[in-house]
């Protein structure tokens, strides 16, 4: 009996050991994130005050100054990108979910898959040749379009996935009432999948809010406050990149504050998305 028992005991011990290893590895992933969060917030939160939010950066050597230009720029660039990408993305997602078998849908789906994997820097290059070079200068709207291209696959995919999960009986119910196609889609299907679509939209905004690479060659950055869509514009990630790699401590401080704001914005948006998805979920 004992001879038979001891390998079992060994196996049980091994089982426990590996469970411990898995748990240790799994939870240690969280540690760097917590470090980063703690560090950024600790370094950044002290820099944030009213002046920081409403002033533009001062030249090197002068202390003080703020990131108003980057804040406003980020808001404008993201808003324009969202205005471009959300309708196109949702309609595209609808197209993919409604035409599951057509040839064009196959290619469109493939394109979206490709687009999702394209490195952001490549999008930046392309946007540069499409929108910067032909129009003779960096502009915020070119940055917005580059970001919109980055948003597109996320919105399209989440819309498609959400709508695909809705039962066909819902569409049929709509059609059987004599509803035209567009009303079935807009009044029945989209409202039922609204939580999934919204979460896709918000996640895509969170994603582009921190994107820097496509903006390097498009919005470019601007040390002054600008609201013109055709002029270069500053944005938070650009400001962080430029000031973080600069040798000046004052600028580092600005970058820490900006990082903190950007991080909080992105995290809040992510958490908010989780909550909204759960709350707005239509019970089928």
């Amino acid at each position, binding site marked *: 009996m004992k001879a038979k028992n001891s390998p079992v005991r060994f196996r049980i011990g091994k089982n426990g050991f590996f469970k411990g290893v898995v748990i240790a590895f799994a939870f240690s992933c969280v540690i760097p994130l917590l470090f980063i969060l703690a560090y950024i917030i600790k370094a950044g939160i002290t820099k944030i005050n009213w002046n920081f939010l409403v002033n533009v950066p001062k030249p090197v050597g002068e202390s003080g100054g703020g990131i108003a230009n980057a804040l406003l720029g980020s808001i404008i660039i993201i808003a324009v990108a969202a205005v471009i990408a959300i309708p196109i993305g949702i309609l595209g997602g609808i197209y993919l979910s409604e*035409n*599951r*078998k*057509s040839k064009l849908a196959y290619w469109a789906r493939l394109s979206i898959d490709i687009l999702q994997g394209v490195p952001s820097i490549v999008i930046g290059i392309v946007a540069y040749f499409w929108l910067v070079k032909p129009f003779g200068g960096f502009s915020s709207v070119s940055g917005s379009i580059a970001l919109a291209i980055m948003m597109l696959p996320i919105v399209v995919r989440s819309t498609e996935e959400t709508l695909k999960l809705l*039962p066909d*009986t*819902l*569409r*049929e*119910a*709509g*059609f*059987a*009432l*004599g*509803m*035209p196609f567009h*009303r*079935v889609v807009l*009044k*029945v299907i989209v*409202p*039922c999948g*609204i939580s999934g679509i919204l979460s896709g939209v918000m996640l895509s905004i969170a994603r582009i809010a921190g994107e820097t690479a496509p903006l390097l060659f498009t919005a470019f950055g601007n040390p002054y406050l600008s609201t013109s869509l055709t002029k270069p514009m500053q944005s938070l990630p650009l400001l962080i990149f430029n000031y973080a790699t600069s040798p000046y401590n004052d600028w580092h401080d600005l970058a820490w504050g900006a990082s903190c704001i950007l991080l909080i914005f992105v995290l809040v948006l992510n958490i908010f998305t989780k909550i909204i998805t759960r709350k707005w979920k*239509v*019970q*089928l």
Partner: protein
Amino acid sequence: MESTIVRSIDYNAYFGDNHVVKNVNIDIPKNNVIAVMGPSGCGKTTFLRGINRMHELIPGATAKGKIMLDNEDVMEMHPIFVRLKIGMVFQRPNPFPNLSIYDNVIAGYKLNGIKLPKAEKDKIVEQSLTKVALWNEVKDQLNKKGTFLSGGQQQRLCIARAVAMEPEVLLFDEPTSALDPISTSTVEELFHDLKQNYTLIIVTHNMQQAARVSDKTAFFYMGELVEYDETKRMFTNPRDTRTQNYITGRFS
């Protein structure tokens, strides 16, 4: 005096190359309950969905022939008009999950963007729910979501939704197959009341149900209409041996 309301002439339906409904000719008299039965895959649901042009919503599906509704060919009309005149109720209750009971009943108006005064909407909701014997059960909770109701109530809500559009014909695609026996018999009783105002075509794979509720029965087999007759006759003295074999359960 019975007058024909729906008449199919040489109706054929296909899924790609698959010929699922073959040359169906059938006359459906007004204010009758017609049961369509047959083994699964016999084309009965396809035929039913052909009547209000739901068939062609499936990619690759096509149809040939005529389906006359009041001497107008359904195949020539725009599907939207057809579906306004021919209501449909599905296998699983499918109330709109994002709408209240009240809005579900008038969904046909609301979601089609037809504006109605509040008083008229109230009237339609009450009348429709009364017709499906649901008014007394839900009149105090009209603002709750339609999906809070039980399965049988949901199905009656869906019937009310179809009835609210005042169609001439109501199609039922296995309307009780997802319901428990009690709800099933409630819905079946409803058919007898509804036939006063509407013509009902019911697809069912439950032949007892066909026998219980219908005036006339059509038996489909392998896409063909094998027999179409008074239900009483069909179940006591079928003409075709295939029908006999099917209703006696001797199908091989």
